Protein backbone atom coordinates (compact mmCIF):
# COMPACT_ATOMS: atom_id res chain seq x y z
CA UNK A 1 0.00 0.00 0.00
CA UNK A 2 1.58 3.25 -1.15
CA UNK A 3 -0.18 5.26 1.56
CA UNK A 4 2.02 3.65 4.21
CA UNK A 5 5.01 5.88 3.40
CA UNK A 6 2.86 8.95 3.89
CA UNK A 7 1.46 7.44 7.06
CA UNK A 8 4.89 6.72 8.43
CA UNK A 9 5.99 10.26 7.75
CA UNK A 10 2.94 12.04 9.10
CA UNK A 11 1.78 9.92 11.98
CA UNK A 12 3.68 9.46 15.18
CA UNK A 13 3.20 5.84 16.27
CA UNK A 14 4.42 6.71 19.75
CA UNK A 15 1.63 9.25 20.10
CA UNK A 16 -0.99 6.68 19.06
CA UNK A 17 0.44 4.03 21.37
CA UNK A 18 0.38 6.48 24.28
CA UNK A 19 -3.29 7.19 23.54
CA UNK A 20 -4.20 3.47 23.48
CA UNK A 21 -2.19 2.82 26.64
CA UNK A 22 -4.04 5.62 28.37
CA UNK A 23 -7.33 3.99 27.35
CA UNK A 24 -6.08 0.62 28.63
CA UNK A 25 -5.26 2.20 31.99
CA UNK A 26 -8.70 3.85 32.10
CA UNK A 27 -10.38 0.50 31.44
CA UNK A 28 -8.35 -1.33 34.09
CA UNK A 29 -9.30 1.39 36.57
CA UNK A 30 -12.97 1.19 35.47
CA UNK A 31 -12.97 4.96 34.98
CA UNK A 32 -15.81 4.75 32.52
CA UNK A 33 -16.69 8.45 32.40
CA UNK A 34 -13.16 9.11 31.21
CA UNK A 35 -13.58 6.28 28.70
CA UNK A 36 -16.78 7.75 27.23
CA UNK A 37 -14.98 11.05 26.78
CA UNK A 38 -12.43 9.36 24.49
CA UNK A 39 -15.09 8.80 21.82
CA UNK A 40 -16.67 10.76 19.01
CA UNK A 41 -20.48 10.53 18.86
CA UNK A 42 -20.76 8.76 15.52
CA UNK A 43 -18.91 5.45 15.75
CA UNK A 44 -19.29 1.98 17.27
CA UNK A 45 -17.62 -0.10 19.92
CA UNK A 46 -17.81 -3.63 18.56
CA UNK A 47 -16.89 -7.05 19.92
CA UNK A 48 -17.78 -9.24 16.94
CA UNK A 49 -18.35 -12.97 16.67
CA UNK A 50 -16.38 -14.87 14.05
CA UNK A 51 -14.66 -13.26 11.10
CA UNK A 52 -17.60 -11.40 9.56
CA UNK A 53 -17.39 -7.65 9.06
CA UNK A 54 -21.04 -6.83 8.33
CA UNK A 55 -21.51 -5.96 11.98
CA UNK A 56 -24.90 -4.35 11.61
CA UNK A 57 -26.52 -7.52 10.26
CA UNK A 58 -24.73 -10.12 12.37
CA UNK A 59 -24.96 -11.13 16.01
CA UNK A 60 -22.05 -9.59 17.91
CA UNK A 61 -20.98 -9.88 21.52
CA UNK A 62 -21.61 -6.17 21.54
CA UNK A 63 -22.37 -3.50 18.97
CA UNK A 64 -22.60 -0.19 20.77
CA UNK A 65 -23.39 3.20 19.35
CA UNK A 66 -22.93 6.23 21.62
CA UNK A 67 -26.29 5.65 23.33
CA UNK A 68 -25.57 1.98 24.07
CA UNK A 69 -22.10 2.87 25.36
CA UNK A 70 -23.63 5.32 27.81
CA UNK A 71 -26.24 2.75 28.90
CA UNK A 72 -23.52 0.14 29.36
CA UNK A 73 -21.48 2.48 31.52
CA UNK A 74 -24.56 3.40 33.58
CA UNK A 75 -25.20 -0.29 34.17
CA UNK A 76 -21.64 -0.74 35.43
CA UNK A 77 -21.85 2.31 37.67
CA UNK A 78 -25.29 2.04 39.23
CA UNK A 79 -24.45 -0.89 41.44
CA UNK A 80 -27.53 -3.01 40.64
CA UNK A 81 -25.68 -5.49 38.45
CA UNK A 82 -24.33 -8.28 40.64
CA UNK A 83 -21.66 -9.19 38.08
CA UNK A 84 -20.26 -5.66 38.08
CA UNK A 85 -20.62 -4.90 41.80
CA UNK A 86 -17.81 -5.61 42.12
CA UNK A 87 -16.58 -6.53 38.63
CA UNK A 88 -13.64 -8.81 37.96
CA UNK A 89 -10.31 -7.02 38.37
CA UNK A 90 -8.33 -6.78 35.17
CA UNK A 91 -4.73 -6.17 34.18
CA UNK A 92 -4.14 -5.67 30.48
CA UNK A 93 -1.32 -4.94 28.12
CA UNK A 94 -1.61 -3.57 24.60
CA UNK A 95 1.19 -4.01 22.13
CA UNK A 96 2.22 -4.92 18.56
CA UNK A 97 0.99 -1.63 17.12
CA UNK A 98 0.69 -1.54 13.33
CA UNK A 99 -0.53 1.42 11.33
CA UNK A 100 -3.04 0.15 8.84
CA UNK A 101 -3.83 3.36 7.01
CA UNK A 102 -4.58 7.04 7.17
CA UNK A 103 -7.02 8.94 5.02
CA UNK A 104 -8.41 12.40 5.63
CA UNK A 105 -8.78 12.87 9.36
CA UNK A 106 -8.86 9.10 10.06
CA UNK A 107 -6.07 6.83 11.27
CA UNK A 108 -6.55 3.07 11.37
CA UNK A 109 -4.42 1.35 13.98
CA UNK A 110 -4.17 -2.36 14.76
CA UNK A 111 -2.76 -3.85 17.95
CA UNK A 112 -2.85 -6.86 20.25
CA UNK A 113 -4.49 -6.90 23.68
CA UNK A 114 -4.01 -9.39 26.51
CA UNK A 115 -6.36 -9.20 29.48
CA UNK A 116 -6.07 -11.20 32.68
CA UNK A 117 -9.20 -11.08 34.84
CA UNK A 118 -9.54 -12.10 38.44
CA UNK A 119 -12.76 -12.94 40.23
CA UNK A 120 -13.14 -15.16 43.28
CA UNK A 121 -9.39 -15.81 42.98
CA UNK A 122 -10.05 -17.48 39.64
CA UNK A 123 -7.99 -16.01 36.84
CA UNK A 124 -8.81 -16.14 33.17
CA UNK A 125 -6.84 -14.89 30.18
CA UNK A 126 -8.31 -13.36 27.04
CA UNK A 127 -6.57 -12.11 23.91
CA UNK A 128 -7.96 -9.86 21.23
CA UNK A 129 -6.95 -8.13 18.05
CA UNK A 130 -7.96 -4.49 18.36
CA UNK A 131 -8.61 -2.26 15.39
CA UNK A 132 -9.07 1.43 16.09
CA UNK A 133 -10.36 4.12 13.82
CA UNK A 134 -8.96 7.25 15.42
CA UNK A 135 -9.68 10.82 14.46
CA UNK A 136 -7.77 13.96 15.24
CA UNK A 137 -10.03 16.60 16.75
CA UNK A 138 -9.39 20.02 18.26
CA UNK A 139 -9.22 18.38 21.66
CA UNK A 140 -6.82 15.66 20.55
CA UNK A 141 -7.20 12.05 19.36
CA UNK A 142 -10.63 10.47 19.67
CA UNK A 143 -11.99 6.98 18.95
CA UNK A 144 -14.54 6.76 16.16
CA UNK A 145 -14.65 2.95 15.94
CA UNK A 146 -13.07 0.20 17.97
CA UNK A 147 -13.32 -3.47 17.04
CA UNK A 148 -12.10 -5.99 19.62
CA UNK A 149 -11.93 -9.39 17.95
CA UNK A 150 -11.43 -11.98 20.66
CA UNK A 151 -9.72 -15.31 20.09
CA UNK A 152 -12.41 -17.99 19.96
CA UNK A 153 -15.09 -15.35 19.52
CA UNK A 154 -17.23 -17.90 17.65
CA UNK A 155 -16.70 -20.49 20.38
CA UNK A 156 -17.54 -20.57 24.06
CA UNK A 157 -16.49 -17.48 25.98
CA UNK A 158 -17.34 -16.58 29.58
CA UNK A 159 -19.39 -13.69 30.93
CA UNK A 160 -17.49 -10.37 31.03
CA UNK A 161 -17.94 -7.61 33.58
CA UNK A 162 -15.42 -5.31 31.90
CA UNK A 163 -14.58 -3.97 28.46
CA UNK A 164 -11.88 -4.93 25.96
Amino acid at each position, binding site marked *: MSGITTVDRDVDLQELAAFVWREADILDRCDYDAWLALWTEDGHYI*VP*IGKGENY*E*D*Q*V*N*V*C*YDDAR*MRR*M*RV*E*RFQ*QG*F*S*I*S*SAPPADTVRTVSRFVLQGATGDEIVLGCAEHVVENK*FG*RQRIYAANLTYTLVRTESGLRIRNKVARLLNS*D*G*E*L*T*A*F*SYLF
Partner: protein
Amino acid sequence: MSLDYNPGRPEDLVEHDRVQTPLYEDAALFEQEMEKIFAHSWVFVAHGSEVPEKGSFILSWVGQQPVIVVRDRKGDINVLVNRCRHRAATVCEVKKGKTSSFQCPYHGWGYGLDGSLRGVPYPEQYGKDFDKSALGMKALRVESYQNMIFATLDDGIEPLAEFLGPAKKWIDLFMKQGGGYPVKVLGEHQFTVPMNWKIQLENTTDAYHFPVVHKSFIQSLDKEAEATFNFFDKAGFVEDLGNGHSVAVMIPELIDLDENLDDPIPERFEELAQALRDEGFDEPRVRKIVRATGGAGFNLNLFPNVSLSLAFFRVLRPVGVKETAIRHVCLGMDGGPAAANRMRIRLQEHFQGPMGFGTPDDAEVWERVQRGTLGGRELPILVNRGLVDEVPGVDGPRGHLSAETGMRASYQMWKRMMAQ
Protein backbone atom coordinates in the same frame (compact mmCIF):
# COMPACT_ATOMS: atom_id res chain seq x y z
CA MET B 1 -14.20 -33.13 46.69
CA SER B 2 -14.44 -35.43 49.65
CA LEU B 3 -16.23 -38.65 48.98
CA ASP B 4 -17.32 -39.39 52.53
CA TYR B 5 -20.90 -38.67 51.54
CA ASN B 6 -22.77 -41.71 50.28
CA PRO B 7 -25.47 -40.51 47.92
CA GLY B 8 -27.41 -43.78 48.12
CA ARG B 9 -30.17 -44.12 45.56
CA PRO B 10 -30.32 -41.03 43.33
CA GLU B 11 -34.11 -40.89 43.41
CA ASP B 12 -34.01 -40.43 47.19
CA LEU B 13 -32.24 -37.10 46.71
CA VAL B 14 -35.37 -35.50 45.26
CA GLU B 15 -38.53 -34.80 47.21
CA HIS B 16 -41.45 -32.82 45.86
CA ASP B 17 -40.50 -29.59 47.62
CA ARG B 18 -36.71 -29.92 48.00
CA VAL B 19 -33.64 -31.53 46.47
CA GLN B 20 -30.33 -32.45 48.03
CA THR B 21 -26.98 -30.70 47.46
CA PRO B 22 -25.17 -33.66 45.79
CA LEU B 23 -27.37 -33.01 42.74
CA TYR B 24 -25.08 -30.08 41.98
CA GLU B 25 -21.72 -31.50 42.92
CA ASP B 26 -21.48 -35.29 43.03
CA ALA B 27 -19.30 -36.48 40.15
CA ALA B 28 -20.59 -40.07 40.29
CA LEU B 29 -24.16 -38.82 40.11
CA PHE B 30 -23.23 -36.73 37.07
CA GLU B 31 -21.96 -39.85 35.31
CA GLN B 32 -25.26 -41.57 36.04
CA GLU B 33 -27.18 -38.59 34.65
CA MET B 34 -25.26 -38.78 31.39
CA GLU B 35 -26.31 -42.39 31.05
CA LYS B 36 -29.82 -42.42 32.49
CA ILE B 37 -31.01 -39.02 31.26
CA PHE B 38 -28.94 -37.83 28.31
CA ALA B 39 -28.68 -41.25 26.68
CA HIS B 40 -32.45 -41.87 27.01
CA SER B 41 -34.07 -38.51 26.21
CA TRP B 42 -34.83 -36.49 23.15
CA VAL B 43 -31.94 -34.01 23.15
CA PHE B 44 -32.14 -30.81 21.07
CA VAL B 45 -29.22 -30.66 18.61
CA ALA B 46 -29.92 -27.90 16.06
CA HIS B 47 -32.53 -25.87 14.24
CA GLY B 48 -33.31 -26.90 10.66
CA SER B 49 -32.26 -23.48 9.34
CA GLU B 50 -28.71 -24.21 10.50
CA VAL B 51 -28.52 -27.01 7.93
CA PRO B 52 -30.55 -25.42 5.13
CA GLU B 53 -29.29 -27.34 2.10
CA LYS B 54 -28.22 -30.81 1.04
CA GLY B 55 -24.71 -31.25 2.40
CA SER B 56 -25.09 -28.55 5.09
CA PHE B 57 -23.78 -29.63 8.48
CA ILE B 58 -23.21 -28.24 11.96
CA LEU B 59 -21.38 -29.69 14.94
CA SER B 60 -23.42 -30.27 18.09
CA TRP B 61 -23.64 -32.41 21.20
CA VAL B 62 -25.84 -35.05 22.79
CA GLY B 63 -24.89 -34.81 26.43
CA GLN B 64 -21.10 -35.11 26.39
CA GLN B 65 -20.99 -36.82 23.01
CA PRO B 66 -19.91 -34.76 19.99
CA VAL B 67 -22.20 -35.19 16.98
CA ILE B 68 -22.52 -33.89 13.44
CA VAL B 69 -25.96 -32.78 12.30
CA VAL B 70 -26.03 -33.09 8.51
CA ARG B 71 -28.60 -32.91 5.73
CA ASP B 72 -28.00 -35.68 3.20
CA ARG B 73 -28.66 -35.86 -0.53
CA LYS B 74 -32.26 -36.92 0.03
CA GLY B 75 -32.80 -33.90 2.29
CA ASP B 76 -33.03 -36.08 5.41
CA ILE B 77 -31.32 -35.00 8.61
CA ASN B 78 -28.71 -37.36 10.08
CA VAL B 79 -27.14 -37.02 13.50
CA LEU B 80 -23.82 -38.87 13.55
CA VAL B 81 -21.44 -39.41 16.44
CA ASN B 82 -18.32 -37.47 15.43
CA ARG B 83 -15.99 -40.41 15.76
CA CYS B 84 -14.25 -42.46 13.11
CA ARG B 85 -15.08 -46.16 13.28
CA HIS B 86 -11.43 -47.05 12.74
CA ARG B 87 -9.52 -45.63 15.72
CA ALA B 88 -11.87 -42.93 16.95
CA ALA B 89 -10.53 -39.65 15.52
CA THR B 90 -13.12 -36.93 15.06
CA VAL B 91 -13.93 -36.84 11.36
CA CYS B 92 -14.95 -33.16 11.35
CA GLU B 93 -13.72 -30.13 13.29
CA VAL B 94 -15.27 -27.45 11.10
CA LYS B 95 -18.09 -25.96 13.17
CA LYS B 96 -20.50 -25.42 10.32
CA GLY B 97 -20.37 -25.69 6.55
CA LYS B 98 -21.22 -27.69 3.46
CA THR B 99 -19.67 -30.87 2.20
CA SER B 100 -20.31 -33.89 -0.01
CA SER B 101 -18.70 -36.41 2.37
CA PHE B 102 -16.63 -36.71 5.53
CA GLN B 103 -13.10 -38.01 5.43
CA CYS B 104 -11.19 -38.99 8.55
CA PRO B 105 -7.88 -37.10 8.65
CA TYR B 106 -5.95 -39.96 10.31
CA HIS B 107 -6.00 -42.87 7.85
CA GLY B 108 -8.46 -41.57 5.33
CA TRP B 109 -11.63 -43.58 5.86
CA GLY B 110 -14.40 -41.85 3.92
CA TYR B 111 -18.05 -41.56 4.97
CA GLY B 112 -21.19 -40.49 3.16
CA LEU B 113 -23.58 -37.82 4.46
CA ASP B 114 -25.68 -40.57 6.01
CA GLY B 115 -22.61 -41.88 7.86
CA SER B 116 -22.15 -44.96 5.72
CA LEU B 117 -18.55 -46.07 5.21
CA ARG B 118 -17.75 -45.45 1.55
CA GLY B 119 -14.06 -46.04 1.16
CA VAL B 120 -11.02 -47.33 3.00
CA PRO B 121 -7.46 -46.79 1.72
CA TYR B 122 -5.67 -50.11 0.94
CA PRO B 123 -8.62 -52.37 1.84
CA GLU B 124 -6.68 -55.57 0.89
CA GLN B 125 -5.18 -55.94 4.38
CA TYR B 126 -8.64 -56.31 5.89
CA GLY B 127 -9.35 -59.47 3.94
CA LYS B 128 -12.41 -60.61 2.04
CA ASP B 129 -15.00 -60.63 4.84
CA PHE B 130 -14.43 -56.96 5.76
CA ASP B 131 -18.00 -55.63 6.07
CA LYS B 132 -18.13 -51.92 5.27
CA SER B 133 -21.88 -51.83 5.88
CA ALA B 134 -21.29 -52.60 9.57
CA LEU B 135 -18.73 -49.82 10.00
CA GLY B 136 -20.72 -46.68 9.30
CA MET B 137 -20.56 -43.76 11.71
CA LYS B 138 -22.86 -44.26 14.65
CA ALA B 139 -26.20 -42.70 13.69
CA LEU B 140 -28.74 -41.52 16.24
CA ARG B 141 -32.50 -41.65 15.98
CA VAL B 142 -33.69 -38.23 14.76
CA GLU B 143 -37.05 -36.49 14.86
CA SER B 144 -38.08 -32.85 14.43
CA TYR B 145 -40.87 -30.62 15.60
CA GLN B 146 -41.39 -27.15 14.09
CA ASN B 147 -37.94 -27.46 12.49
CA MET B 148 -36.31 -28.06 15.89
CA ILE B 149 -34.12 -31.15 15.49
CA PHE B 150 -33.87 -33.61 18.37
CA ALA B 151 -31.81 -36.80 18.56
CA THR B 152 -31.70 -39.72 20.93
CA LEU B 153 -29.37 -42.61 21.62
CA ASP B 154 -32.36 -44.73 22.66
CA ASP B 155 -34.31 -46.50 19.91
CA GLY B 156 -36.94 -47.58 22.40
CA ILE B 157 -38.28 -44.31 23.80
CA GLU B 158 -41.59 -42.77 22.72
CA PRO B 159 -41.78 -40.60 19.57
CA LEU B 160 -40.71 -36.97 19.99
CA ALA B 161 -44.25 -35.63 19.58
CA GLU B 162 -45.42 -37.79 22.45
CA PHE B 163 -42.46 -36.77 24.63
CA LEU B 164 -43.21 -33.07 24.02
CA GLY B 165 -46.94 -33.57 24.64
CA PRO B 166 -48.65 -30.32 25.72
CA ALA B 167 -45.38 -28.41 25.16
CA LYS B 168 -46.07 -28.70 21.41
CA LYS B 169 -48.79 -26.08 21.39
CA TRP B 170 -46.45 -23.66 23.17
CA ILE B 171 -43.76 -24.35 20.56
CA ASP B 172 -46.37 -23.55 17.88
CA LEU B 173 -47.16 -20.25 19.61
CA PHE B 174 -43.47 -19.44 20.02
CA MET B 175 -42.82 -19.88 16.30
CA LYS B 176 -45.38 -17.20 15.46
CA GLN B 177 -42.55 -14.73 15.99
CA GLY B 178 -41.58 -15.58 12.43
CA GLY B 179 -44.18 -12.89 11.65
CA GLY B 180 -45.43 -14.88 8.66
CA TYR B 181 -41.91 -15.99 7.61
CA PRO B 182 -40.15 -19.20 8.61
CA VAL B 183 -38.07 -18.85 11.78
CA LYS B 184 -34.36 -18.77 11.06
CA VAL B 185 -31.21 -18.81 13.19
CA LEU B 186 -29.38 -15.48 12.78
CA GLY B 187 -26.41 -16.21 15.02
CA GLU B 188 -25.66 -17.12 18.59
CA HIS B 189 -23.86 -16.31 21.80
CA GLN B 190 -21.91 -19.11 23.48
CA PHE B 191 -20.37 -19.20 26.92
CA THR B 192 -19.50 -21.54 29.74
CA VAL B 193 -20.33 -21.18 33.41
CA PRO B 194 -18.70 -23.12 36.27
CA MET B 195 -21.96 -24.67 37.43
CA ASN B 196 -23.91 -27.88 37.29
CA TRP B 197 -26.28 -28.13 34.32
CA LYS B 198 -29.37 -28.31 36.51
CA ILE B 199 -28.75 -24.81 37.87
CA GLN B 200 -29.44 -23.69 34.29
CA LEU B 201 -32.29 -26.17 33.86
CA GLU B 202 -34.03 -24.53 36.84
CA ASN B 203 -33.57 -21.01 35.59
CA THR B 204 -35.63 -20.49 32.46
CA THR B 205 -39.02 -20.78 34.14
CA ASP B 206 -37.76 -19.09 37.32
CA ALA B 207 -39.38 -15.67 37.00
CA TYR B 208 -38.73 -15.06 40.72
CA HIS B 209 -35.12 -14.05 39.98
CA PHE B 210 -35.91 -11.65 37.17
CA PRO B 211 -36.61 -8.37 39.00
CA VAL B 212 -33.62 -8.97 41.30
CA VAL B 213 -30.90 -10.30 39.02
CA HIS B 214 -31.99 -8.26 36.00
CA LYS B 215 -32.67 -4.97 37.74
CA SER B 216 -29.83 -3.30 35.82
CA PHE B 217 -31.33 -4.53 32.53
CA ILE B 218 -34.82 -3.31 33.44
CA GLN B 219 -33.42 0.08 34.40
CA SER B 220 -31.80 0.44 31.00
CA LEU B 221 -35.23 0.31 29.31
CA ASP B 222 -37.66 3.12 28.65
CA LYS B 223 -40.66 3.45 31.00
CA GLU B 224 -43.03 1.58 28.68
CA ALA B 225 -40.66 -1.36 28.23
CA GLU B 226 -39.96 -1.34 31.95
CA ALA B 227 -43.71 -1.82 32.55
CA THR B 228 -43.72 -4.74 30.05
CA PHE B 229 -40.97 -6.42 32.07
CA ASN B 230 -42.71 -5.82 35.41
CA PHE B 231 -44.05 -9.34 35.29
CA PHE B 232 -45.59 -9.71 38.70
CA ASP B 233 -48.15 -6.94 38.11
CA LYS B 234 -49.76 -9.08 35.43
CA ALA B 235 -51.81 -12.26 35.24
CA GLY B 236 -48.83 -14.50 34.46
CA PHE B 237 -48.35 -18.02 35.72
CA VAL B 238 -46.06 -21.01 35.52
CA GLU B 239 -47.40 -24.44 34.58
CA ASP B 240 -46.06 -27.98 34.70
CA LEU B 241 -46.50 -29.50 31.21
CA GLY B 242 -45.43 -33.04 32.11
CA ASN B 243 -42.23 -34.98 31.25
CA GLY B 244 -40.14 -32.30 32.96
CA HIS B 245 -41.34 -29.50 30.67
CA SER B 246 -42.82 -26.26 31.97
CA VAL B 247 -43.94 -22.86 30.76
CA ALA B 248 -43.70 -19.49 32.48
CA VAL B 249 -46.04 -16.86 31.04
CA MET B 250 -44.58 -13.47 31.88
CA ILE B 251 -46.41 -11.19 29.46
CA PRO B 252 -49.91 -12.68 28.93
CA GLU B 253 -50.84 -10.23 26.16
CA LEU B 254 -47.96 -11.68 24.11
CA ILE B 255 -48.91 -15.37 24.32
CA ASP B 256 -50.43 -15.37 20.85
CA LEU B 257 -48.67 -12.90 18.57
CA ASP B 258 -51.54 -13.00 16.07
CA GLU B 259 -53.89 -11.52 18.66
CA ASN B 260 -54.20 -7.95 19.96
CA LEU B 261 -52.76 -6.62 16.72
CA ASP B 262 -54.66 -3.38 17.24
CA ASP B 263 -52.79 -2.57 20.45
CA PRO B 264 -50.71 0.60 20.20
CA ILE B 265 -47.19 0.05 18.87
CA PRO B 266 -44.70 0.48 21.74
CA GLU B 267 -42.50 3.52 21.42
CA ARG B 268 -39.28 1.57 21.05
CA PHE B 269 -40.73 -0.15 17.95
CA GLU B 270 -42.01 3.07 16.32
CA GLU B 271 -38.85 3.58 14.26
CA LEU B 272 -39.05 0.01 12.94
CA ALA B 273 -42.75 0.42 12.15
CA GLN B 274 -41.99 3.54 10.13
CA ALA B 275 -39.14 1.81 8.30
CA LEU B 276 -41.52 -1.01 7.34
CA ARG B 277 -44.18 1.45 6.16
CA ASP B 278 -41.50 3.19 4.08
CA GLU B 279 -40.64 -0.18 2.55
CA GLY B 280 -44.25 -0.48 1.41
CA PHE B 281 -45.75 -2.88 3.96
CA ASP B 282 -49.43 -2.21 4.64
CA GLU B 283 -50.53 -1.46 8.20
CA PRO B 284 -51.68 -5.00 9.15
CA ARG B 285 -48.33 -6.44 7.98
CA VAL B 286 -46.42 -3.71 9.78
CA ARG B 287 -48.23 -4.56 13.01
CA LYS B 288 -47.72 -8.28 12.60
CA ILE B 289 -43.98 -7.93 11.92
CA VAL B 290 -43.44 -5.39 14.68
CA ARG B 291 -45.21 -7.62 17.16
CA ALA B 292 -43.20 -10.64 16.02
CA THR B 293 -39.96 -8.67 16.34
CA GLY B 294 -40.49 -8.24 20.08
CA GLY B 295 -40.82 -12.01 20.61
CA ALA B 296 -43.26 -14.10 22.61
CA GLY B 297 -44.37 -13.38 26.16
CA PHE B 298 -43.34 -16.67 27.72
CA ASN B 299 -40.47 -19.02 28.47
CA LEU B 300 -40.89 -22.70 27.66
CA ASN B 301 -38.45 -25.10 29.25
CA LEU B 302 -38.01 -28.48 27.57
CA PHE B 303 -36.34 -31.23 29.58
CA PRO B 304 -33.42 -31.82 29.49
CA ASN B 305 -31.51 -29.28 27.41
CA VAL B 306 -33.37 -26.57 25.52
CA SER B 307 -35.69 -23.72 26.27
CA LEU B 308 -37.58 -21.30 24.08
CA SER B 309 -37.23 -18.03 25.88
CA LEU B 310 -39.10 -14.91 24.72
CA ALA B 311 -37.18 -14.48 21.44
CA PHE B 312 -34.35 -17.02 21.47
CA PHE B 313 -33.34 -20.61 22.21
CA ARG B 314 -31.22 -21.36 25.23
CA VAL B 315 -29.40 -24.66 24.81
CA LEU B 316 -27.42 -26.22 27.64
CA ARG B 317 -24.66 -28.78 27.43
CA PRO B 318 -23.31 -30.60 30.45
CA VAL B 319 -19.52 -30.41 30.18
CA GLY B 320 -18.68 -31.75 33.63
CA VAL B 321 -20.31 -31.92 37.04
CA LYS B 322 -19.38 -28.27 37.68
CA GLU B 323 -19.15 -26.95 34.12
CA THR B 324 -21.96 -26.15 31.70
CA ALA B 325 -21.87 -24.64 28.22
CA ILE B 326 -24.75 -22.50 27.01
CA ARG B 327 -25.84 -21.33 23.56
CA HIS B 328 -28.18 -18.36 23.23
CA VAL B 329 -29.46 -18.80 19.71
CA CYS B 330 -30.74 -15.62 18.05
CA LEU B 331 -33.80 -16.17 15.85
CA GLY B 332 -35.22 -14.07 13.04
CA MET B 333 -37.48 -14.07 10.03
CA ASP B 334 -36.19 -16.03 7.04
CA GLY B 335 -36.69 -13.71 4.07
CA GLY B 336 -38.20 -11.07 6.35
CA PRO B 337 -37.39 -7.37 6.30
CA ALA B 338 -33.76 -6.60 7.14
CA ALA B 339 -34.79 -3.82 9.53
CA ALA B 340 -36.82 -6.26 11.64
CA ASN B 341 -34.04 -8.86 11.78
CA ARG B 342 -31.56 -6.13 12.64
CA MET B 343 -33.71 -5.05 15.53
CA ARG B 344 -34.03 -8.62 16.76
CA ILE B 345 -30.24 -8.94 16.69
CA ARG B 346 -29.83 -5.68 18.65
CA LEU B 347 -32.40 -6.84 21.23
CA GLN B 348 -30.50 -10.12 21.60
CA GLU B 349 -27.18 -8.30 22.06
CA HIS B 350 -28.80 -6.01 24.63
CA PHE B 351 -29.67 -8.85 27.02
CA GLN B 352 -27.86 -12.02 25.97
CA GLY B 353 -24.35 -13.22 25.65
CA PRO B 354 -21.03 -12.61 27.42
CA MET B 355 -21.45 -8.81 27.41
CA GLY B 356 -25.25 -8.53 27.45
CA PHE B 357 -27.05 -6.54 30.13
CA GLY B 358 -28.60 -9.76 31.48
CA THR B 359 -26.42 -12.83 30.91
CA PRO B 360 -23.38 -11.79 33.00
CA ASP B 361 -25.62 -11.31 36.01
CA ASP B 362 -27.26 -14.71 35.45
CA ALA B 363 -23.81 -16.28 35.13
CA GLU B 364 -22.67 -14.65 38.36
CA VAL B 365 -25.58 -15.96 40.45
CA TRP B 366 -25.37 -19.43 38.90
CA GLU B 367 -21.70 -19.63 39.82
CA ARG B 368 -22.60 -18.37 43.29
CA VAL B 369 -25.01 -21.31 43.68
CA GLN B 370 -22.21 -23.72 42.80
CA ARG B 371 -19.85 -22.01 45.24
CA GLY B 372 -22.45 -21.86 48.00
CA THR B 373 -23.16 -25.56 47.89
CA LEU B 374 -19.61 -26.21 49.15
CA GLY B 375 -20.96 -25.30 52.56
CA GLY B 376 -23.65 -27.04 54.59
CA ARG B 377 -24.12 -29.84 52.15
CA GLU B 378 -26.66 -31.47 54.46
CA LEU B 379 -28.96 -28.48 53.82
CA PRO B 380 -31.65 -28.90 51.18
CA ILE B 381 -32.19 -26.77 48.05
CA LEU B 382 -35.74 -25.45 48.45
CA VAL B 383 -38.13 -25.65 45.53
CA ASN B 384 -41.33 -25.24 47.55
CA ARG B 385 -42.21 -21.71 46.51
CA GLY B 386 -45.82 -21.31 45.39
CA LEU B 387 -47.03 -24.67 46.65
CA VAL B 388 -49.49 -22.84 48.91
CA ASP B 389 -51.53 -21.41 46.08
CA GLU B 390 -50.85 -23.89 43.26
CA VAL B 391 -53.99 -24.92 41.37
CA PRO B 392 -54.70 -27.46 38.64
CA GLY B 393 -53.88 -25.81 35.29
CA VAL B 394 -54.74 -26.94 31.78
CA ASP B 395 -52.00 -29.59 31.53
CA GLY B 396 -50.62 -29.80 35.05
CA PRO B 397 -50.18 -27.90 38.29
CA ARG B 398 -50.22 -24.14 37.78
CA GLY B 399 -48.59 -21.71 40.19
CA HIS B 400 -48.02 -18.00 40.65
CA LEU B 401 -45.54 -16.69 38.10
CA SER B 402 -42.87 -16.60 40.80
CA ALA B 403 -43.59 -20.19 41.91
CA GLU B 404 -41.06 -23.00 41.60
CA THR B 405 -43.57 -25.17 39.73
CA GLY B 406 -41.18 -25.45 36.76
CA MET B 407 -38.35 -26.70 38.94
CA ARG B 408 -40.62 -29.24 40.59
CA ALA B 409 -41.62 -30.44 37.11
CA SER B 410 -37.98 -30.87 36.05
CA TYR B 411 -36.94 -32.61 39.24
CA GLN B 412 -39.86 -35.04 39.16
CA MET B 413 -38.77 -36.05 35.64
CA TRP B 414 -35.16 -36.30 36.85
CA LYS B 415 -36.29 -38.55 39.67
CA ARG B 416 -38.32 -40.76 37.33
CA MET B 417 -35.45 -41.17 34.88
CA MET B 418 -32.78 -41.69 37.52
CA ALA B 419 -34.86 -44.42 39.19
CA GLN B 420 -34.87 -46.52 36.02
